[in-house]
Each structure stands twice: as C-alpha cells, then as structure tokens.
C-alpha cells in the first residue's frame, strides 16, 4: 500500500495521530504537498463523504475523520502556502438569521475544506448583510446558506437580492440547503444552486467556483 493510500485509510478511521505523522513521512519521502493533499487527505474525505451520504457511517465517524483531516492539513498548510498552491477559492457559509441550527452547515464546511476550499464560517443567526459584506471583503466566490426553519428561509432571498443590488451577482454565487429547502425554492429565489446533502453541496460549490 502506498503511503498516500495509507493516509487516506487512517483518515477514514479518524486516526488523528497517524494522519499527521504519515503526512510528515510522505513529505520526507519526497511527495509534493499538493499530491499529499489531493491523493491522501481529499481522497480520504471523499470516501467518508460518500459513505455518510449512503448512510453506511454516521455523524460521529465524519467528525473523527474531519479531526484527522485537520491534523494533516496543519502539517501541509505552510508548505502549500510556500509552494503557492492556490486554494479552490473562498466560500462563506452560515446558518441564516433567526436560525440556530448548525450541524448541517458544519458538515458542509468540513467537506468543503476536505475538498480544498478555504471556508469562512460565520456561524449561525447570520444576517443577510453580513454574508454579503464578508463575501465582498474576502473576495469569496460562493456564499453557502443553511436554514432548518421554514420561518428563516426568506433570509436566503434577502442575500440573493442584496447581491443583485450591489452588482455582485455572478461574481459571488449562492447555494442554499437545509431540511425545508428544495431545488424548487432555490430556483424561485434566484439562488445559483441547491445542495440536497453535504456531498451534493460540495459538488455544486465546485461547479459554481469553476474549480
């Protein structure tokens, strides 16, 4: 088994001691940081995301795998920056104003990081203006919004409308998700995409970011 495969497997098992150690070994053995990221960490998170989507594993397994991924990323980050490896782009995520639920949003954030995006997580109860202001300041390519309450979904439309008023539509794309949200609703409010689950959300963000 190659060391990259082993990184991926240990990540799937959530072994946050082995992953950074193996990442260090891979680098010492001459592997490029970008290769370790793509074929080790991201490959492992892709497997985890797929198994979670297919209900073969559950939230605890994803959280442990994420911790192992972060431990590996910590080792890689300085090297990636030195090598000038661009992230896939910045994504601003949050649960919309009025909504205090954040497990779904957190999962999407984990998977986006695992897919190589730089994620700016604004937390929950995020007002429309803050999504837009942060996306503008940080030059984000995508805003991802989550809602679990039917009563808070209109904030998603506020964000889309605000982007239009500030002439940012097209430069900053939008994706929405959450239990009461649907593709139909996304289309109705003019959002650029809808993510049914976190795996689909990552695929859609990749498309939106042109990555």
């Amino acid at each position, binding site marked *: 088994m190659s060391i990259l495969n082993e990184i991926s497997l240990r990540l799937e098992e959530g072994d946050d001691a082995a992953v950074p150690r193996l990442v260090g070994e891979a680098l010492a053995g001459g592997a490029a940081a970008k290769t370790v990221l793509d074929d080790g960490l991201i490959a492992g998170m892709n497997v985890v995301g797929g198994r979670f989507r297919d*209900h073969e594993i559950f*939230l605890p*397994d994803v*959280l442990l795998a994420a911790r192992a991924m972060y431990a590996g990323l910590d080792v890689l980050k300085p090297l990636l920056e030195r090598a000038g490896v661009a992230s896939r782009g910045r994504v601003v995520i949050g649960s919309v104003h009025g*909504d205090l639920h954040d497990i779904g949003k957190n999962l999407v954030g984990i998977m986006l990081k695992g897919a190589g995006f730089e994620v700016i997580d604004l937390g929950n109860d995020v007002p429309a203006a803050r999504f837009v202001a942060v996306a503008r300041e940080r030059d984000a390519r995508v805003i991802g919004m989550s809602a679990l309450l*039917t009563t808070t979904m209109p904030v998603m439309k506020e964000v889309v409308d605000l982007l239009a008023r500030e002439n940012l539509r097209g430069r900053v794309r939008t994706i929405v998700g959450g239990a*009461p949200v649907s593709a139909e609703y996304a289309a109705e409010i003019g959002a650029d995409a809808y993510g049914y689950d976190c795996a689909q959300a990552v695929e859609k963000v990749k498309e939106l970011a042109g990555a």
Partner: protein
Amino acid sequence: MSMTFLERIGRGETLLADGAIGSLLMARGLEPGAAPEGLNLTAPHVVEEVARLYLEAGAEIVQTNTFGASPLKLARHGLAAGAAGINAAAVAAVRRAVGRRAYVSGSCGPSGRLLKPYGDVGEQEMGDSFREQMAALAAAGVDLICVETMTDLREARLAVAAARSAAPGVPVMATMTFDATPRGFFTVMGATVEAACAGLADAGADLVGSNCGNGSARMMEIAAEFKRHGRLPVVIQSNAGLPVLRQGAAVYPETPADLAQAARGLKALGIAVIGGCCGTTPEHTRAMRRALDEEA
C-alpha cells in the same frame, strides 16, 4: 385528573399530547434567532396563552417552553445563569393555563453540544447541565419530564439519568429523532430504534419513542418498530409532514385530518402517548382529539 400520568398509562389508555410551540410563539412576537425560553420571563402571558390553546384543543399533556432551557444550551444566548428561574417560570405559566386539567410535561431538548471525543463536552459537564434543568422542573411541580429530539443516545441517556437523580419520582418520557435510510431508521448519530429502546429503558425512562424529523407515515413505521423491540409504553410525536413549497413559502403539508387519521392508526398499534411536533397546531390537536375519542 385524580389519577397520575403513569396510572393512566398503566391502564392502557392512549393520552394526547400537544403540538408545536415555537411557531406559535413566533406568530406572537418571538424574534427570529432569540431564545424562545427567554419569553418565560419576559412574556409569560404569551407562553400561558399557547398552553391554553392546546388545553382547549383537547391535549391531556401540555409541554413547557423549556426545550432549550438546560444551562449548556442557554449559554449560547448568555442565559445559562438564569436557567433555574427560566424553568420555574415556564412551569408556572403552563400550570396557570391548565391547572390540573392536563399534565404539565417539562420539555428537555439536546444541549446543542457534542460529547467528547466528537465534541468538547465531557459527560460530567453535560450531566450537570441536565441535572440543573431537571431539578428546576421538578421543584416547580411538573407532572412528567419529556427528553426529546435526541440524536445521540449517550446524551439522551445522560438526560434521562439526570431526570431520575435530580427529579426523583417524576415520570420520564424519552424520544429520539430518526432518519429513514435504505438500511432502516437511524439517528444522524447512528442510533437504531432497537438501541434506543434498550438504552433509554436502561437509563430509567418510563416511556420511549420518537418525535420530529418525519411525517405521520414514517412515524407509523417507527412506532411499529418501537413496539417490536421494546416492552415500555411508546410515545410518538410526528411532524405535520416535511416542508413543501407553496406560493413561495415552505409549509408543512399534513392537515389536521391527516394527523387524525395517523392518531387512529397509532392508537390501534397500542401507542401510549400521541402528539405533534413541527408544523402541528392546536387545530391538529383538536382533530386528533376527536379521532381518539370516537372509538372510545
């Protein structure tokens, strides 16, 4: 109500619990993003009004507005220090509304935090938080406690055990939220109905079951599974379906008649406590009341 809650359950009666509270509170001025539990102190008359609506609709179990009133959860709003007062005020408001005509059920939802090793909270800290809430609910005179919307069986067991130790003698219902998967029902944390049955009973629950996450058709399947795996009486509180889009707004599609039909089915299954969760209203409760009464 001369008989106690558990005496009536023991006789094989089917009792009707109330429906959603948060949506009614929002319709009465609860700010989006604010802690609903704060209203127990700032607008107790509103909390009392909602409880009265459910009593008048025929609910025999009316819950307190304390779903997020454990100190760990209240800490998100900077209200942790006020937990005892919030729980006491919440029970008092429902008691004023229902007197002894319905049982006051102390609601206790998840802490909003994850236990180690997945999160950063230890079992001791989480248990302490639940015990503080349970002690306050018991001191204020609840007739029963309902641990609900749980997805982590360890957390649910901590809450049930907290009720057992800090609210001795108060009956405990414990319900978890399941997702339908191709391999059967699981909580997002991976608990099966069978594991929930055994784990909640072992922690000391008097009734076990499910609330939230599903409409009435799925809940019927979950109810049957609880009956198959456990010996304890079962409680089922269904959503009014899952939200669909109508005229640009997301709405819960199941009507009072739909939930009335479900109530008949659940009663036939031998479910002990039937109620509503997200999307249900006093109108749903009223229809369920009529459905449960017609066969009696």
